[in-house]
């Protein structure tokens, strides 16, 4: 984790840091994020957002692609997506 809090603004490119993994749990048939001594089960939106984290796309581009994917206007999903990314960053599950 960086020494300062990461703020997920438009140009930030989120990545999974070492020790964090997105995994499909075959037994329970759900996507999970495995992180140091914790795990999160993702809901459908969460999965879509996390799948956009590819180490290349910035927050802006992630919002664009989700807006296309869900055929929802950009402004409508922007806040939710940023909030989710920020929450994940605060939990140490995303880095920049």
């Amino acid at each position, binding site marked *: 984790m960086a020494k*300062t*809090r990461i703020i997920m603004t438009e140009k930030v490119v989120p990545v999974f840091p*070492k020790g964090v993994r997105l995994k499909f*749990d075959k*037994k329970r048939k759900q996507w999970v994020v*495995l992180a*140091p001594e914790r*795990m999160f089960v993702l809901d459908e939106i969460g999965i879509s957002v996390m799948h956009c984290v590819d180490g290349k796309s910035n927050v802006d581009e992630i919002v664009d692609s989700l807006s296309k994917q869900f055929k929802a206007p950009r402004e409508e999903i922007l806040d939710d997506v940023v909030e989710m990314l920020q929450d994940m960053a*605060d939990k140490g599950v995303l880095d920049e």
Partner: protein
Amino acid sequence: MTVSIEPPLAMLAEITHRCPLRCPYCSNPLELSKRSHELSTKVWLNILDEASELGILQVHFSGGEPTVRDDLTVLIKHAEKKGLYSNLITSGVLIDKSKLDSFIDSGLQHIQLSIQGADSEVGDYIGGFPGGHQKKLEVAQLIHDVDLPLTLNAVVHRHNIGQIKKIINLAEKLHAQRLEVANVQYYGWGFFNRKNLLPTREQLMEATEEVNKARDRLKGKLVIDYVVPDYYARRPKACMGGWGRRFLNINPAGYVLPCHAAETIPGLRFERVTDKSLSEIWYHGSAFEAFRGTDWMPAPCSTCDRKEIDWGGCRCQAAAITGRPDATDPACELSPDHGSMNSIAQNESKPSQEQFQYRRM
């Protein structure tokens, strides 16, 4: 109501009881397993196969000191192959650069490094291992250099809880992501040394305040896990997330336990992975069935609306304090035995002149 049995999420793999340190609060049993009773590499590889099949997602390699075994790299590699997330719980004193590299190349995802104090003076005294603290600082630096996430684990008690502020500063300086401030769990060696380890109420209140201040200051930079010790709590913790619900523990001799201290509970029979499949033990083992769900609960738990939140608390603690493993955890204010827990805290937390006893084989 019967709660349906879910597959376990995590496994604590206690691959050995051997350890160069001698912490007086070690949660290992007083009767430590000898090297000659340890499971072979082949058996552990099988266990990892079974674990992944059973639905386990995370494996915590622990002990004793897991790095005393020279097959740890092989085990980590196999866990990785099976899609298991592996974590190493270590005192760090046996790790050098090449060992660390081999763990990481094998797929290790995270390290939890213990410290026994904020500096060499306290740390080496508590751990009973001269030079240990300095070694830990070096290992933390190595971990940071390769960018692996680090959790620093500090077990606190009467002799080091006053260092809490310095411990938090150290965690920051060592670039830890998480700091786990764990109050001693009073079983195993900890139970044996309880009267020389229990902190006073004042010490705890001070520490809690320091932690809360630091949490605000460090939001988004360092996560601090801190739980008030049971002896001063009003409600129990959901021990292991509920008995037989999420975790299983395999001890060095291959016994499968619902929690690492379960052997302290009289009357339970444990089974070995070398005799039965992990799945059979998880779903049908008598020790797992004993306190799974809520059917076994006595009053006041049986009618309490928190029974599926804390699952009646810790069985080991109930057994240790009340002598009845199926009693409500005395850490709970609603337990008829809560008073005895309070008086233990009051009587035993007074600074005594006596020295604690180091753990020994």
